[in-house]
């Protein structure tokens, strides 16, 4: 159920991000003299101060925000899998070094580090922002994956595969990796959320490329234009809401996966009789 709702939300935004711009066609940055129009038949979500259509921006923003989220999550996950699985499986000095590295990145406060790094970024394009977020965000996944690898490595089926003569690469990728897929998926989704949030935070601080329309940059402009102070709620609310919705969708899917792995977590309807005890 959770997975369904979550996946529904995600699918919706994914469709919007992929096909929305084709449908809408309009240029999200296109300005007009009709500034600060409240929602109307013409502008479903009103316009910004410079007369840009909020809905159009929202649709294009989905592409950037989701794109940054997914891109940095992909990078972070690849890093996490590499570090976590390799460290966990090989063990020894390599593992020591990798896990100290992981822990360091884990403990260092990410957002300040992102801000500092972004502050220096020569290019603030979508990709570089995604890379910065990924670089600061892979550690959690690596740590979880390492712990899991350590436990899976000791599991009998890995031992059995070793005993029957499988090589280490094959064991890592064919025996261990599939078992860890749910964990990888969870950490991937969690990274998407935090990446989207981080991108929004960066844009909001004006540290991302503001000439690209993203939900974060929309919020930046809304805040800059004092949208709330002048009552332009339609400018301020939708981007934040979309971020929260996507986050909720991802979290729901994640909880769903958790619940499959650990059925105890499921919410249940307690029959009256049992509740009495």
């Amino acid at each position, binding site marked *: 159920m959770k997975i369904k709702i979550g996946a529904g939300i995600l699918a919706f935004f994914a469709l919007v991000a992929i096909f929305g711009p084709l449908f809408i066609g309009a240029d999200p940055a296109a*300005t*007009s003299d009709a500034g*600060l129009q409240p929602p109307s038949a013409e502008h479903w979500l009103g316009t910004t*101060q*410079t007369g840009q259509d909020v809905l159009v921006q929202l649709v294009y923003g989905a592409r950037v925000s989701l794109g940054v989220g997914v891109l940095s999550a992909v990078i972070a996950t690849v890093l996490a899998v590499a570090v976590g699985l390799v460290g966990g499986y090989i063990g020894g000095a390599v593992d020591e070094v990798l896990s100290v590295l992981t822990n360091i990145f884990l403990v260092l406060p990410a957002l300040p580090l992102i801000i500092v790094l972004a*502050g220096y970024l020569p290019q*603030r394009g979508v990709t570089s922002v995604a890379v910065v977020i990924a670089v600061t965000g892979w550690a959690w996944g690596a740590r979880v994956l390492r712990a899991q690898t350590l436990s899976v490595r000791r599991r009998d089926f890995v031992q059995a595969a070793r005993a029957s003569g499988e090589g280490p690469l094959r064991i890592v990728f064919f025996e261990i990796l599939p078992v860890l897929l749910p964990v990888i998926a969870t950490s991937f989704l969690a990274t998407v959320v935090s990446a989207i949030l981080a991108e929004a935070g960066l844009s909001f601080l004006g540290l991302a*490329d503001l*000439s690209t329309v993203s939900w974060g940059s929309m919020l930046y402009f809304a805040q800059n234009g*004092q949208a709330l102070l002048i009552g332009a709620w339609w400018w301020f609310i939708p981007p934040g809401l979309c971020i929260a919705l996507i986050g909720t969708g991802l979290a729901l899917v994640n909880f769903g996966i958790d619940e499959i792995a650990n059925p105890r977590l499921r919410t249940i309807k307690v029959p009256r009789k049992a509740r009495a005890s």
Partner: protein
Amino acid sequence: GCSGGGGGGGAAKSGDAPPLVVHAVDAGTFQEDFNPYHLEGVNFGTSGMIHETLMFFNKLKPGEITPWLALEHKWSDKGKSVTFTLRQNVKWSDGKPFTADDVAFTFDMLKKHPQLNKSALEIEGTEVLAPDKVRIDFAATSYAKLYDIAGNSPIVPKHIWEKEKDPATFTNPKPVGTGPYTLSKFSAQLYELVKNPSYWQPGKPEVPVVRFPAYTANALQTALQQGEVDWAGAFVPDIDKIYVQGKPEQNKYFFPPEGLVTLLPNLTHPVLGKPEVRQAISLAIDREKIVRIAERDYTKVAHPSGVTMPGGEAYVPEEYRDAAYKVDIEKAKELLKGIDPAQLTFELLVPSPYTDWVNAAQLIREDLAKVGITVETRGVAFQDWVSKVGKGDYDLSIRGTPAGPTPYFQLRSLLYGKLAKPVGESSTGNYERWKDEETDKLIAEYAATEDLAEQQKATQGLAKIMIEKLPALPLFYSPSWAQFRTNKYVGWPSEQDPYAMPSPYTSPDAAMVLLRLKPAGT
């Protein structure tokens, strides 16, 4: 009514006149720094309100100079020496008399500590000729630097500063100045200036207390909306809704032009180097629309010469005084006929924190698309933009050029060949890299004379080059922000009486404004 607002409930010391709550620059907190030669950390008001300059230059009326601590100046040695005759009976706020020693000390200090010498005055030495006469010697002709010497170098008291080992790091926490105010209270969130009772202009100022609460850009908007601030210099996104609130008589604002925002074409670019392309670009851009949408009508379209109007008429050749931009798509297309359309693709670099420029860039993109020029706007980090534009690593960019006491300074910074370094090296002006002998000659002519008419003539030459050769494409004036409320005090600068820059963050102009204010209703 509402006297004081959130910031005004405090201690008005002298008389009944209420304190004036001022917001000059965005700050979360203040640092205790009242050294007028510090660039950023210094608290606003130090220069002008506490430490005064020798003369006052009104940038809104180029050429209008008011004697201040100095009564007059005299150049000698072909502009390499200047002698000031000082005002008598001026006292430091601790009661000690102000003398030529203080002036000499100030300029000696600048010579000794180059990092304080932000105008890079080439000081050779000073000589006190009499208690009220001092001569300053320079290594080069410095006529054009009179503003920096007399209008932009606050004088500090020798008897206090000479005790400091390193004036560069001295924070001057208990400033002693000749100005109309002294510091009475400092905390990280608020500092307060009170009237200097022994000020040399008796009876002035009439505003007894000036309070400076710390506001960040965001907080200020709310404060303005709630009427907490009497005088602010801020960009307000929707001034009618947030500030004026239907009371244009009381909640006034005045945004006179202060500098020039230009579209910089990189002249080392093979296509942009061609005048007809620049001409076409200029013809295609609808500056009115940019001003309306991106600048919210807070400013005006620039004069094609780049000279600030009104006020700068004398610096523009007769025939061009009424020149104005007009959009002409057809003509632009005509001009571009000879050029391979594939080459008409440029990147427009803007610093992304400057949201109005980001919007302007977007409008330019839309306009140029109409004549077949493809523009890709790229918003980059401020630092990145500074470094890229400085090094000439861009196609098109938008950049502001600061105003000086006369339009010459603006044009010099925009066009002077010596400022342009080769691509790859950081320049400090002339970012488009305009190389033209005639331009440099005109600039040299201005610098070599103290005669106003000569100077105007040279500047007119520069204006003509701007209009005819389009080395850079002026867009609009950058406004000087000033919101002031008349419920407590009246006498603010206005279009009719532009006696000083109205924004509270311009010094020493803000002190001039304070000296002119009178309680409302008197």
